[in-house]
């Protein structure tokens, strides 16, 4: 005599007396070590342990200004199963022939809940500035209201700490015309002037992009982007006679496979 009846009795008794919780759950399909679900190595179901391979270039855009055009990319590829995946994230900005903000992450990703993945690995700042190497650990997933979110903490080979927080949201104007606000923040515990990084909130890269999904995997977009240094980093940039930040009109293509 098990739960269905117990539940019924429990519900009927509820309100009059606190029923004893005697439920003993047992799934008829519970995994049993050594039990046979198929013959030999022939799986009747082909894909539930498959590995998948995908990549997305969220941003591949020109950012226009009278002073010159920057090129910016931000994307990731991943390979793996439902639970275990290898991620490579890459972003950077090409500015007057100089590559900056080049952050490349190689992460192992583990699914931990309905919408969230834990990620850990290495980040290398690889661009025309001095190279820095960081250990990385963070989360990636879907927050409530279908808000895409990533937060990663970093510790460098020089004992410094950093963090990167990214979020975006898709507003469907129509089923193909999509408005996407997006923002990325970098934080550091100590300044690193040679990379124009300041202690505290160091820089932001944000955009409001309007894309049209010609195909699901190919969507040209127009946008307004802001890239700039904040607080201490702003002073560092000024000291180096660089523009601390600028709003740009951007044109790009979002694509994935």
């Amino acid at each position, binding site marked *: *005599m098990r739960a269905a009846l117990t539940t019924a009795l429990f519900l009927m008794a509820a*309100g009059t007396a606190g029923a004893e919780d005697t439920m003993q759950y047992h799934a008829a399909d519970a995994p049993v070590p050594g039990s046979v679900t198929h013959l030999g190595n022939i799986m009747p179901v082909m894909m539930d342990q498959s590995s998948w391979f995908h990549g997305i270039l969220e941003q591949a855009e020109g950012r226009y200004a009278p002073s010159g055009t920057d090129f910016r990319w931000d994307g990731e590829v991943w390979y793996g199963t439902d639970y275990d995946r290898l991620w490579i994230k890459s972003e950077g900005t090409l500015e007057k022939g100089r590559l900056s903000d080049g952050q490349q992450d190689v992460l192992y990703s583990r699914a931990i809940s309905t919408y969230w993945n834990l990620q850990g690995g290495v980040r290398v700042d690889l661009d025309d500035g001095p190279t820095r190497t960081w250990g990385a650990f963070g989360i990636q997933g879907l927050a409530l209201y279908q808000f895409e979110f990533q937060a990663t903490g970093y510790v460098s080979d020089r004992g410094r700490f950093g963090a990167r927080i990214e979020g975006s949201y898709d507003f469907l104007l129509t*089923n193909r015309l999509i408005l996407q606000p997006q923002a990325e923040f970098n934080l550091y515990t100590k300044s690193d002037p040679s990379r124009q990084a300041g202690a505290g909130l160091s820089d932001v890269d944000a955009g409001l992009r309007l894309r049209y999904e010609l195909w699901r995997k190919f969507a040209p977009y127009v946008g307004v982007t802001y890239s700039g240094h904040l607080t201490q980093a702003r002073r560092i940039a000024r000291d180096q006679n660089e523009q601390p930040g600028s709003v740009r009109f951007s044109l790009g293509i979002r694509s994935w496979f």
Partner: protein
Amino acid sequence: MHSFSSLARGLTRRRFVTSLGAGACLSTLPQQAKAEGRPSSGCLPAMPSNTWDLKVSRTHVSLDGKSMHAPSIGGSIPGPILRWKQGETVTLNVRNTLDETTSIHWHGIRVPADMDGVPGLSFAGIPPGETFTYRFRLHQSGTYWYHSHSNMQEAMGLYGAIIIDPIRPDPNACDRDYVVFLGEWTDVMPHDIVNNLKMQDDYYVFRQRTAASFPKEAREAGSAMAALKDRLAWSRMNMAATDIADVSGIIYTYTLNGHAPDMNWNGLFRPGERVRLRFINGATMTLFDVRIPGLEMLVVQADGNDVEPVPVDEFRIGVAETYDVIVQPKEDRAYTIFAQSEDRTGFARGTLAPRVGMSGLIPPMDPRPVRTMVDMGMGNMKPGESMDHMSMPGMDMKEMDHMPMAGMDMSHMGHMAMPKIEVDDPGPPPINVENQNVAMMPMDRTGSPGDGLENNGRRVLTYKQLRATRPGADPRPPSREIILHLTGNMERYIWGFNGRKFSESGPIKLKKGERVRFTLINDTMMEHPIHLHGLWSELENGQGDYRPYKHTIISQPGSRMSYLVTADVPGMWAYHCHLLYHMDLGMFRTVVVS
């Protein structure tokens, strides 16, 4: 939209094909005479036959501008209609000329386990170049179908109809008798479809709620605030009320006997004749809503078993289900067989006509359904309403009266008085990587025709209306109940039972001869047509001893339902959702009878 444009585009080009391919049944045509790449006429072979040689091969098929090198039988899609006779022993020599393993599963046919055709359970499959001979005795009659159970071949066209003539005179014999085989056609490979869904679960859905659709929703909801609240409630759950079908008319051309809508399959009649239509849903991912405007349909058979006739205007047919209906067109005009996909992104269509080549009016598609809290298993709650009062201890009898909760419907009250039965209750499924939702208040929805069909002004078939013409063969009450939750995570596109995929689960073990009640609680917000191989599923739909015998049962979202099974044939049997991509991603179990 897609279908409309192709309809206009292809009409003249296809008319030639129409006049050749469909129409009168040349009943003397031998089965082998069917040309390569030709769709089905829907006509039954003149006589049943006990021996069939079936060659599985790849054929280049082009339909609605979409070409594929598709695996098929005898070069036609659907494959040949196999006509058998109850009581006889059939011999089926299946020769595999593909470069990969194949198999044929005889869907709904009661066979010894080693003849069931599921690689990994019944046998090892049919290797390339080899012939496998299936041989079994037919204990049943009615309309069934066959399909491959290997490597997505079914999704590409390896399927066909089976008709078994009864030994006793058929109470439903008609002047005309047609198979109406519903399916889909696409040039996108099954693996690519799944791969896309893995990256983006709404890849094929272009009917979402948007800013542009908001004014209309606000009007329907009564106010902008109400519409906004409903949206936020769904958004908060990271789910979409517009999630009706995972794969849509964006890539699918819906087919009737292998004919695209513009090819207009014809079934001929003389006014006044009774016409039997044997509907089979051989689709991969699509539930169809079927009607013939201007004709009443008398449902006389479900899943091959006779039922007391039910007159209806429309019925929903889940993937792998079959329904036989009888119509009697009296006027000398064309009648459209209209089968719209549940998500209303397209339709399959054919015509019953007194003369070849006629077309009836094609009705507009209905509005697409929108999921509600009922589908989430939240009973009749309003979106955004607090769930606090649902906590068990605080519940009082007054509230329970209108909440058909676990164990509270009449069928369950009924067996409380019976001898104790063993219950395998997994408890509420975990919310985890593989499961997104728990139906807090699953309802009995056998009285509902399904989402999008309620209160549409037509008489639509419900499961409650199905009543067998004779009492069940096994009068014993069940000695055991197996409760299973249908679970999934749409976002990650993972499907399973009890929050687990196939590869992470054990077999469901039944003792030979055991009488078991299967209870399905659907925690997902989609329909799942659940198919148990080898054994009958006797739907407990309030018809007492006259439970309809089925092989595939739609579990509606947010519902709780049950059926009885007599485990009378030993072996390993497949048990799965017949939405093929759900099955292949984990909504599959092995049932072992020993």
